[in-house]
């Protein structure tokens, strides 16, 4: 009887020991693995430039070098900003990141639509998804338009992140 309980004790302690090793290794490893979920983003405002000369009624491409918002700093990545000025005075600041699989959307003048080459997604000039698989409009960059008091020009600035509000 005494032997059986000693045996049970040894088995339990062995299992406990193995479990303790597992827990000790899992805590730092899981934390490391999950760290991108909790990392501080490096949000930056980037000047696109004056937009008063941007033509009205057709999307205009501007390229912006954006620093990566997570991970260690690497050279800035060029990203596309489509400026769409409407005759009613509103301005949309679209990315070219397809809402379906994030492929490189471009304005197709012959169609008068944005076209995604991956799976044939289509968006109208406002970035509203009108054909193909995209589930949502073309995302906009987080942006602001300010009046430069010196030059009297409207200046567009964008953040290195997409506007999640759609």
């Amino acid at each position, binding site marked *: 009887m005494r032997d059986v309980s000693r045996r049970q004790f040894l088995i339990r302690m062995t299992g406990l020991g193995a479990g303790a090793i597992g827990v000790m290794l899992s805590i730092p490893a899981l934390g490391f693995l999950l760290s991108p979920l909790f990392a501080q983003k490096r949000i930056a405002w980037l000047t696109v430039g004056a937009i008063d000369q941007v033509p009205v009624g057709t999307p205009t491409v501007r390229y912006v070098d954006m620093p*990566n918002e*997570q*991970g260690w700093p690497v050279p800035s990545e060029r990203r596309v900003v489509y400026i769409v000025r409407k005759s009613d005075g509103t301005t949309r600041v679209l990315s070219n990141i397809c809402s379906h699989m994030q492929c490189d959307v471009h304005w197709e003048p012959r169609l008068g639509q944005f076209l995604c080459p991956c799976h044939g997604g289509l968006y109208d000039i406002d970035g509203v998804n009108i054909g193909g698989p995209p589930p949502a409009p073309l995302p906009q960059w987080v942006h602001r338009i300010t009046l430069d008091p010196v030059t009297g020009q409207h200046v567009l600035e964008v953040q290195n992140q997409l506007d999640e509000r759609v």
Partner: protein
Amino acid sequence: MNAFRTLLHPSRVVTVPLRNAYRWFDERTGITQLVHKGLYEAVPHSGGWAYTLGSATLVLILLQLFSGIFLLLDYVPSVEEAWQSLHFLQAQDAFGNWVRGLHLWGAYTLILVIGLHALRTFLSASYKRPRELNWMSGALLFFLVLGLAITGAMLPWDNAAYWTATVVTNILHYFPLIGDGLRQLWRGGTFVGPITLTRTFALHVWVLPFVLFAFIGAHLYLLRRHGEFGAWVNYNTETDDPDKEIGERIRNAEPPYPTKRIERRYAAPKRTVDFFPDQLFKDTAVSVGLVAIIFIAGLIFGATLDEPADSATLTYVPTPEWFYLPLDQFLVLTPHDPLIAVGIFVIVLAGAAAFFLLPFLDRSRERRPTRRPEVLVPALFMIFAVIFLAVLGVNRLYNL
């Protein structure tokens, strides 16, 4: 004098110490018994050429390991240097590019051969009791090979790799509830960036291969435990009532197997041969042919490298690797929310689950393909669907 000469004869001077050293080693390791056990396994007598695909798959996986180790001599898993390091191979180092060609064409061949291996196993119904876990471990190996192929395609950090990484990681975010988090974990951020490459690299060179080789061990252990089933032809007889005879033999081939080899022969297919040299010769012949094709394709075609990754391109048309064309076409056919998630995580995963769980879906005792229409017809439908989707995808992307 004569005796002295014999005693000092070169063959004696060399062979006697060698033989003694071998005996010493064998006494301590049992190596002879181990090798004999491996070599003189009984395998079915007929249809040996059809059974070479498994060993060919293993050889091709080892070729990937070998060429992959050599690629690590130059490749740098960094968004700034990955493309540069491979461009150096392409422009400066013909042998390096040849090795990269081996890795690329080896991967293409491996996907084809592992698919044929699965098809052969399906047609011969080798997955039935007691070999259900042989099939399931093999199905996992197939998925792991596809995972290795897609993570490998992301590493060169050219445009093809960058947009593959973008699309593949983005698919995760359609997963209900935790999708955004999953995408962020793989990417190491909202966008594809430096951590995306290091994490994908870790998956490709350590995580997936580690799991792969563990399951290869399990797969081979189970193969040796139950023996090669072969196909129904190996259980055929010339009696008046062959069906009954075949059924009897197959029942005999089922567990519990006698452990002794002499009894095992009785329970095995009608006629067997030793694995060595009969089957191993055929295995080697097929592997030599496949490696020769890869050797030449690697030299002639090498491996392609696109322009460096450009996140601001307006003209690049991302196209999937050929083996992901059917899945890519599937993304076109399931538009909008929530059909995108249903297409990926319900329909595709259901197909994968059916493949994985085949031994439990096909529960009849029948082994001949024509007598298993209830699994043959759905399987043919799936194969044709995959080919049809691939054709649609080629037509869409290349306007043929």
